[in-house]
């Protein structure tokens, strides 16, 4: 049976900018290049959000270091750790639970990719972690809704289909 839990303590930073200088400065801090291909991630450390926008996910807070590295550049660094909730959906049938409220072809989403879409009408950033484990980044104010919806979908899945 699938289960959903919240992942606490991750540091989330929105990063906006562009150009060679910007990418060099960011790579120095992240120890990874920002993904240029839409809907991909840099080893789960930076997720593509838009052509000039990424979500940086880290254990330690990075906003300060990024701001320092980008000083004087036309770029934006915003710490959104408190503004987003991170949910993890795992267990058997996790993908089916997600598919019951999401219109994307989830089988086409491999580890290393990510996608922003709607889950039961809530804006969500999906990140497949491999082995049927999904990470969901939702707005903090949508956390209760997304979680309740997922738990409901898991419960529904457990009901055997009528003969």
């Amino acid at each position, binding site marked *: 049976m699938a289960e959903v839990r919240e992942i606490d303590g991750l540091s989330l930073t929105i990063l906006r900018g562009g150009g060679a200088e910007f990418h060099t400065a960011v790579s120095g801090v992240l120890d990874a290049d920002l993904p240029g291909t*839409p809907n991909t991630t840099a080893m789960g450390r930076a997720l593509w959000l*838009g052509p000039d926008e990424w979500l940086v996910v880290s254990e330690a807070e990075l906003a300060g270091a990024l701001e320092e590295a980008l000083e004087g550049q036309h770029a934006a660094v915003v710490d959104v750790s408190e503004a987003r909730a991170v949910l993890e959906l795992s267990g058997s049938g996790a993908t089916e639970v997600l598919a019951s409220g999401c219109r994307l072809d989830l089988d086409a989403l491999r580890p290393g990719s990510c996608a922003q879409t709607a889950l039961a009408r809530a804006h969500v950033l999906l990140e497949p972690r491999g082995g049927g484990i999904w990470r969901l980044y939702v707005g903090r104010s949508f956390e209760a809704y997304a979680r309740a919806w997922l738990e409901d979908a898991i419960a529904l899945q457990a009901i055997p289909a009528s003969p």
Partner: protein
Amino acid sequence: MMRIECPWCGGRDETEFHYGGEAHIARPEDPDALSDEAWADYLFMRANPRGVHAERWMHAQGCRRWFNVLRHTASHEVVAVYPMGAPRPDLPETAA
């Protein structure tokens, strides 16, 4: 339900997008110099064709970027997708 090809994210359902009205309507350089009629024309008058319509869309539940779409208003066929600021593309022979 329409499928719209986001230039960044690929094909997604219409419900993920936000409609932004007719494309290529430039704000007058000097609104003060306009007659009431010309101002009303800029504000309210839209093409409303039965056929291919140039309009703006935004991928609200995705990358949140604006882009232009040529859509056939009767069949909802999306004929072309092109970036903001680009001129309206010429139609392929098959579409009308």
